[in-house]
């Protein structure tokens, strides 16, 4: 819609950019952004305006304000990964996906907050502090929450965004940008999407370039896309997907950007409901919602059957070993010599490295590095690392079997419950939380499959709940078509942000139902 508005001249890229920047300022309490690139954004908007005036926009994304998670390299803009290790690091280059967005004329507003080095499921463990879920300040949530005492109002009641791409999810959810990039290694795009009520797409591994995305687990990382509707996600996907010679893990097949049908038809599809996804701890609300969703498909004529992915419960353990092992390797590059933080200790190279890493990494990161190194020790390699790789194959095979038997799409919950209040969330440590929260999203990363979170309904507490659709490898068109159909059926409510409304009535009115397609 906004793109059409830009074309028709109803609004200019400059105005759009200004409004978004203003909104970012007034929602600073959300802590969604680490860096706001105000000057460059305004310049990009100016260039875009010139193009529109000449009648030559670069495409649908020209002039559209976007945000990027702070673990993507952005030339000339600080990239921190929310860690002391990279504070002050100004990237000398753009990640391929960032470059692609800029080449399409998108306006980069800034870098969003995350868990340190994308490790975590709450966006609470970065050095710049936790991200607050915009829904904490929505009328829907406030109406349902009972203040315990007069002084204990919203300050202590706010809920987390989920993670680790919490900043990106919050940015999209609070209307400060029209699309944001996240990353997804174990659910890091879909988890915050579910908690913040936005669409979160994890593409098939190998579809989108990882060049410039600071790596966590090379065999599972993918850039993730966060938007307010499925059509927008399809558009962004169209501009990002495709082979990149700079990332040899991108497939060479020709990618054709697609448009989704206006009236998708799901009657010829077979929807699988994996019974193991009724995991312990799944809230009864979500279970009921999942069941209702299955009925929606059934009533539309689709074949809905129960399927089994028997190794599901080992997926999180397998992930734990493989992830920490790859992390141990990937974090080895941070030694203080070429970039990032460097310790004052100067006695020897090794002691400088050790001190730099002691000073630069937080507990979570250090913990994973040490665990990873343990699993990679000669005496443990077979029993842990190789064993996990074997289990990985079993998990991937589970999916192959199910898809091979005629199932087109799997329907599962995305999270075990709605967003937890921050005060509750921090009572457990990061690893326990990740193990609990990643359970439903993690297996798709193991098998490299595309998956998407579609906001479905509000919980009893007035917070978003999303459901997940998992598709076949490289079948994003089918996955997004089904997702769009589902989105139309559930009609997820728009967030009613009160505080913001007071300050920016005009901005809010314009962007309330804003998608750019």
């Amino acid at each position: 819609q906004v793109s059409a508005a830009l074309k028709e001249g109803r609004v200019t890229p400059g105005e759009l950019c200004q409004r978004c920047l203003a909104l970012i300022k007034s929602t600073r309490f959300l802590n969604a952004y680490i860096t706001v690139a105000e000057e460059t954004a305004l310049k990009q908007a100016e260039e875009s305006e010139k193009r529109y005036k000449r009648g030559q926009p670069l495409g649908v994304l020209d002039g559209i304000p976007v945000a990027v998670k702070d673990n993507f390299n952005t030339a000339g803009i600080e990239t921190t990964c929310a860690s002391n290790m990279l504070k002050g690091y100004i990237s000398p280059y753009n990640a391929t996906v960032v470059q692609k967005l800029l080449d399409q004329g998108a306006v980069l507003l800034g870098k969003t907050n995350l868990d340190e080095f994308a490790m975590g499921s709450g966006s609470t463990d970065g050095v710049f502090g936790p991200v607050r879920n915009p829904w904490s300040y929505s009328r829907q949530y406030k109406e349902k929450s009972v203040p315990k005492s007069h002084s204990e109002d919203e300050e202590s009641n706010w809920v987390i965004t989920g993670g680790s791409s919490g900043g990106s999810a919050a940015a999209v959810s609070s209307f400060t940008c029209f699309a944001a990039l996240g990353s997804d290694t174990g659910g890091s795009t879909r988890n915050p999407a579910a908690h913040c009520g936005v669409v979160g797409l994890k593409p098939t591994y190998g579809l989108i370039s990882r060049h410039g995305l600071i790596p966590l687990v090379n065999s599972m990382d993918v850039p993730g896309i966060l938007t307010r509707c499925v059509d927008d996600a399809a558009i962004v996907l169209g501009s990002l997907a495709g082979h990149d010679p700079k990332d040899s893990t991108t497939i060479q097949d020709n990618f054709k950007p697609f448009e989704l049908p206006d009236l998708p038809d799901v009657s010829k599809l077979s929807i699988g409901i994996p019974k193991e996804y009724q995991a312990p701890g799944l809230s009864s609300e979500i279970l009921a919602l999942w069941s209702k969703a299955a009925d929606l498909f059934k009533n539309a004529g689709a074949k809905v059957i129960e399927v089994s992915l028997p190794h599901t419960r080992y997926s999180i353990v397998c992930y734990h070993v493989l992830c920490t092992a790859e992390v141990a390797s990937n974090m080895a590059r941070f030694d203080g010599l070429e970039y990032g933080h460097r310790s004052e200790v100067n006695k020897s190279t090794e002691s400088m490295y050790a001190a730099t890493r002691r000073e630069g990494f937080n507990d979570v990161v250090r913990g994973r590095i040490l665990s990873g190194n343990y699993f990679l020790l000669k005496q443990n390699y077979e029993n842990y690392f190789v064993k996990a790789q074997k289990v990985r194959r079993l998990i991937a095979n589970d999916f192959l079997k199910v898809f091979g038997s005629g199932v087109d799409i799997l329907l599962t919950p995305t999270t075990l419950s709605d967003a937890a209040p921050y005060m509750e969330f921090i009572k457990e440590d990061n690893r326990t939380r990740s193990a609990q929260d990643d359970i439903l999203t993690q297996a798709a990363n193991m098998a490299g499959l595309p998956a998407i979170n579609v906001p479905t309904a509000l919980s009893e507490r007035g917070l978003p709940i999303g459901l997940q659709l998992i598709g076949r490898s490289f079948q994003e068109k089918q996955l997004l078509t089904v997702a769009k159909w589902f989105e139309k059926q559930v009609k997820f409510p728009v967030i009613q942000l009160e505080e913001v409304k007071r300050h920016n009535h005009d901005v809010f009115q314009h962007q309330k139902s804003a998608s750019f397609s």
Partner: protein
Amino acid sequence: QAATVAVLDHLEQLALVDFRDTEGVERLRKAIQFADQLQEVNTEGVEPMDSVLEDRCLYLREDDVTEGNCTNELLKNAKEKVEEYFVAPPGNIPLPKLEERETFLKGS
């Protein structure tokens, strides 16, 4: 096999990251316990999986130089440099042994 002080010390040296305190050590112990669940799975005859793209051929390009000459760019982010060199403290000096290190593990 278990996380003895010797193994922990070895890990600290390999990873060049320290445990910091009891919590750090506990964290590792719990991680190992958690990972032990893998032993329940029967992986008889199963090949380890390195990548989900194992059935595809990797893209190989011609061995031609297409970019580079960005010395200044690359040096910009380094804290200590001299001309076109990154400067490191003296090498080939091993980390002090456990007894002499400033590490939490000393007490264990």
